[in-house]
């Protein structure tokens, strides 16, 4: 495979990657279907923003946000059946059960761990140590701007955490498990080693928890944009959207079997961050995963970072001894 030059890199030399937007397929079907799958994403985002902007105070609370999040994901799950992007990514019972297991971990045991060592605990410690007055200047900004900034700052942090995971071996060990997924479905974002799921969830949101409405608007940005990273639905995503925001196309390249392609599109919501730092690759990939698309079992996903880390350490420290043993005594 020759691959395509993108900046200084050759993308698609190891595995097929469709670079650029020209050859990305469009939604097939009648005018109603075309209309729905062209305008769904912006319409849903603006509807979510409008809801949180105008919702009365007694409705604008986190519990409402959780239910909206669940409802939105169920709707997208239905869309996966109506208009799949690839037949080869279709959800099976086993895939659904596996994905929901990780979603369950996130809502239960990981949340329990977060109570002790999560970002909120750290932020509270920082705030009480430095006597910070919780960034009160922030509330003088327009609400939508507050929400956007919270989401953007969080994503900016995630970009560097994610990029770090692809460039520093100890972090890569935890993140590599997530790259063994071989298809994108609505709950695939939850699949990964629990250590990574904890790390990627670290953010600065706790600094802004005194502004509930702005915080919920930030959640709307995340739900209305970031959710499409892992989903098997074909959309005719508008040009302005894919310039600013992350899309399934971008994230499929990040998950492709091509090594260079995986080292791109790190942002969760705002792909513009990748454009700024030169790591964005536009296009799409169907063949995903590692080791030629080997599907990893849950048991291996739980232990892989530790077993691989141990193997690496053993290899590193046993080699010089083995080499010296081979040399033998001088005669």
């Amino acid at each position, binding site marked *: 495979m020759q691959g395509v030059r993108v900046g200084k890199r050759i993308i698609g030399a190891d595995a097929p990657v469709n670079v650029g937007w020209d050859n990305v397929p469009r939604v097939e079907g009648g005018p109603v279907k075309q209309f729905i799958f062209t305008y769904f994403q912006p319409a849903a985002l603006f509807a979510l923003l409008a809801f949180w*902007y*105008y*919702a*009365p*105070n007694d409705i*604008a609370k986190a519990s409402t946000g959780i239910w909206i999040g669940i409802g939105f994901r169920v709707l997208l799950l239905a869309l996966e059946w109506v208009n799949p992007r690839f037949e*080869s990514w*279709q959800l*099976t*019972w*086993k*895939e*659904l*059960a596996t994905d*929901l*297991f990780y*979603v*369950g971990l996130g*809502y*239960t*045991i990981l*949340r*329990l761990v977060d*109570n002790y060592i999560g970002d909120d605990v750290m932020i509270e410690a920082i705030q009480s140590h430095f006597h910070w007055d919780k960034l009160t200047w922030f*509330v*003088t*900004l*327009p*609400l939508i701007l507050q929400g956007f900034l919270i989401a953007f700052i969080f994503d900016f942090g995630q970009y560097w955490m994610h990029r770090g995971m692809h460039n520093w071996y100890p972090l890569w060990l935890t993140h590599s498990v997530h790259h063994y997924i*071989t*298809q994108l479905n609505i709950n695939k974002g939850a699949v990964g080693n629990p250590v990574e799921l904890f790390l990627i969830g670290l953010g600065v949101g706790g600094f802004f928890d005194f*502004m509930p*409405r702005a915080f919920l608007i930030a959640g709307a940005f995340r739900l209305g944009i970031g959710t499409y990273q892992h989903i098997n639905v074909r959309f005719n995503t508008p040009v302005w959207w894919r310039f600013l925001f992350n899309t399934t196309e971008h994230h499929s390249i990040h998950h492709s079997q091509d090594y260079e392609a995986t080292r791109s599109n790190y942002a969760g919501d705002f792909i513009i961050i990748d454009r700024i730092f030169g790591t964005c690759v536009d296009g799409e990939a169907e063949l995903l995963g590692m080791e030629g*698309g*080997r*599907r*990893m*079992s*849950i048991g*291996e996903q739980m232990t892989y970072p530790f077993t691989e880390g141990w193997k690496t350490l053993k290899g590193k420290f046993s080699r010089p001894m083995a080499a010296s043993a081979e040399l033998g005594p001088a005669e």
Partner: protein
Amino acid sequence: MNLRFIDWIWNVQGSLPLSAQTSSEEAFDRLAPLFRQVGTNYERFQNQLRFAKKDPAAQDKMAVFEQGLLQVEQGEAGPVLTYHMRSRALLLCFLAPLLFLAFGQLTIFAGQMEKAPVTAKAPEKPKAALPMHPIDQWLGAPAPEKPDAKKKESAAEKKAKKFSPTAAYVFAGIFAALYLIGRFLEPWLVRRLFLRQLALEV
């Protein structure tokens, strides 16, 4: 240990009548493409076909089953294909509710271990009402609640939220439902798959 009373949890068995002229060799020739998959090993011996799978692909139509035995036997009305397959996925899904119930109990236990919140606090200085940007006033966004008017969440309420086992119970229920769906869906799907495959010309 005799597992025959509980092994229905992870075992799927069934049989399919074959047409009178179908030999075991012909039947397995037709089924063979199902076993030519990544991570699948299979061997045929006389009227039997054994298979085992390791890390099967997500789109492998038999990915739910790790191992199995297919046999062509002579029934009263003609040849019959019988199959007996094991599914670790079904077993784990059956056990998953117990895991989530354990998480729920662990959450309750962690909540009980938390020290009782200190109630005597220094009086907080009165907070000023949150300002609202003129653009938001003009667009008609609801005014933020005055800090005094807002019901202050007590430390006990916060603790109850942080250590609530509800999510664990919900996921225990989800996995119980998923198991029931899988236990009926997967045997039906594999039976349909075999029927379709056997109907194909080799």
